[in-house]
């Protein structure tokens, strides 16, 4: 298949792995590379890349899994909204499985609430058009990659004068989170594999502070085996030459300025705000809320929900999301937290680090 097979060529992969091992001998100390995006975490495991890397290159998973960073409050809010009468809740995949304080959207579905998984926000709009007597509320999680599609749906709803379509915006943006991560005294990050698809929208400029202020090598990476291996080579070269920069590996999809049309669309509908991230707390200007012009679509405004204060548990998703620990270091991992009975969201989402470690990180039997 064009644009896929070329990037999974086993011969080239072997050459790149050899090169990585060669370059690794030139490192003066071990390095920790953070892959920001959950899709990178999964791709690394799926291609078996983690275990063929030299010992002095550690890979840590970052906060780029939209389900994982959605706060418990937002999950409880979504669950609360579905209890309003005459509602249809739409959401993306794994969200229905994430445990709130007391229950999950999936359990609410079993209790007869109308909750539907959609692939596109435009499907949610279809439900609103087809069910005028119901209120359709889309639970929107996600980063810059998906936000433009939600903005587009809201604008479409406004044009069509749809009165029964709402969005619970739990959107987050990546660069402010990276700012907090690198500023943490616990941070061990010596290189970033930056998220390819987020970057198709925002471009390369928003990451420049990582180089200018923190001198951390950065590569905007694609998601196929060769993309990731080549990106690691680029990071190593930056590290060895001590010339950090924001390099573009995923050039077939990303350009420096990003997608200006999508950026404009986001800015028309949403504005930045301080929002709560799971495990990371409230981060300045790290999320998006509705602009006043679009308040008619804001589910938060129309469906108030009393949200309980979150109790602290032994779940360490927060530390996993910051790269402070790897999932097996959490006391709950595999013992009482597993994909069938997840305690934290990193075990729920197929892109979550805990789920990836659970599925792919097992030991070989004798």
């Amino acid at each position: 298949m064009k644009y896929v097979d070329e990037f999974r060529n086993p011969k080239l992969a072997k050459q790149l792995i050899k090169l990585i091992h060669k370059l690794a001998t030139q490192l003066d100390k071990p390095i920790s590379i953070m892959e920001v995006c959950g899709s990178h975490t999964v791709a690394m495991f799926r291609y078996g890349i983690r275990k063929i890397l030299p010992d002095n290159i550690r890979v840590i998973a970052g906060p780029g899994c939209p389900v994982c960073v959605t706060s418990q409050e937002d999950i409880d809010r979504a669950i609360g909204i579905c209890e309003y009468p005459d509602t249809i809740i739409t959401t993306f995949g794994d969200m229905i499985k994430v445990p709130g304080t007391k229950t999950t959207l999936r359990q609410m579905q079993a209790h007869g609430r109308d909750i539907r998984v959609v692939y596109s926000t435009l499907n949610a709009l279809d439900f609103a058009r087809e069910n005028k007597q119901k209120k359709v509320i889309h639970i929107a999680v996600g980063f810059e990659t998906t936000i433009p599609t939600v903005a587009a749906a809201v604008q479409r709803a406004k044009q069509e004068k749809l009165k029964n379509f709402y969005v619970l915006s739990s959107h987050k943006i990546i660069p402010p989170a990276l700012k907090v991560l690198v500023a943490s005294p616990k941070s061990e990050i010596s290189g970033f594999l930056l998220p390819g698809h987020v970057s198709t929208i925002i471009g390369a400029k928003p990451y420049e502070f990582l180089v200018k202020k923190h001198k951390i090598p950065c590569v905007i990476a694609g998601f196929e085996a060769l993309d990731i291996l080549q990106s690691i080579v680029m990071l190593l070269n930056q590290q060895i030459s001590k010339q950090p920069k924001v390099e573009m590996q995923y050039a077939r999809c990303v350009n420096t300025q990003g997608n200006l049309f999508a950026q404009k669309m986001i800015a028309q509908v949403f504005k930045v705000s301080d929002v709560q991230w799971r495990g990371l707390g409230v981060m300045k200007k790290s999320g998006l809320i509705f602009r006043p012009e679009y308040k008619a679509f804001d589910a938060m405004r129309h469906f108030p929900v009393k949200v309980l204060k979150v109790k602290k548990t032994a779940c360490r998703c927060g530390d996993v999301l910051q790269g402070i620990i790897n999932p097996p270091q959490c006391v709950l991992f595999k013992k009482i937290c597993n994909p069938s009975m997840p305690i934290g969201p990193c075990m729920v989402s197929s892109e979550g680090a805990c789920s990836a470690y659970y599925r792919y990180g097992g030991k070989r039997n004798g």
Partner: protein
Amino acid sequence: MDKGKITLAHGNGGQVMQKLINKMIISNFGNPILNRLDDGAVLDLKSRNNKLVFTTDSFVVDPIFFPGGDIGKLAVCGTVNDLAMMGAKPLYLSAGVIIEEGFAIADLYKIIISMKKTLALADVKIVCGDTKVVNKGHCDKIFINTSGIGIKQTKARITSSNAQPGDLIIVSGTIGEHGVSIMSQREGLKFKTQLKSDCAPLNGLVADMLKFSDAVHVMRDPTRGGVAAALNEIAEHSNLGIEINEENLPVSSQARGACEILGLDPLYLACEGRLLAFVAPNKAKDIIKVMHENQFGRKAQIIGKVVSGHKKQVYLSTLAGSDRILDVPIADQMPRIC
């Protein structure tokens, strides 16, 4: 055909029900055993081999019509294939149909005709059955249960605990198509694809393969949970390891495209017309040859082998030259967010 809807009267044992059974069931599924309309079917198996294989399966698929098939075709193929995987020749099926009040009679007719065609293709008969109509909301459109009886065709032990170290693993065709075609029709996910479900009766293919019955150790149709679930089950039951080579997995470009976009792994998607066979290495070529000659095995190929190490685990050699565990599926795959 009748443009009306199924009502509770179609299931109450009275005249309306009799009419439906005669018009729809007997006229399409009719055969001397069924036509007696007794409480049970009397079967003369005319076989010296007294090993019967008996199986049952219920079908609740949503959507009930999908590209390449429907719930009726699936209900026949599912049970026929379960019998075939045991090395049996499927002979007779029962069919229990539960219909939701208000179901379109025209749709029921479409399902019945589809079952009729599949029965002919598989050369099996429905010899007894039951129809129930339930109140609206008490079931989702239509559910079908089929049970089946077949006669074992070989003395060889073909079972999931019988894999041998060194066995080669054959898949009979491209994987993932049924799963993708179902997903393409789901509400909220609809996308256009020319892909069709692989749903097909495999008893003919199995009969061809059983010319080498001593060399066939395990057969399994990778339905729910796909190839990954079936391989894990066999590794577990046989207490052996399995190695699969990612490069050799046959996936059509359409199915791959859909999986790439949706973030799904074809190894976990259900197939309804494919089989996995664990065969002795010295006969693998011959078996593949007969498979290629059958319409349902044209793309059969070897995807891996059985090893005595890493017991109960399936490993996949990846395209990047590494390997990883191919784990048991935990829940249904969900399309990814971004």
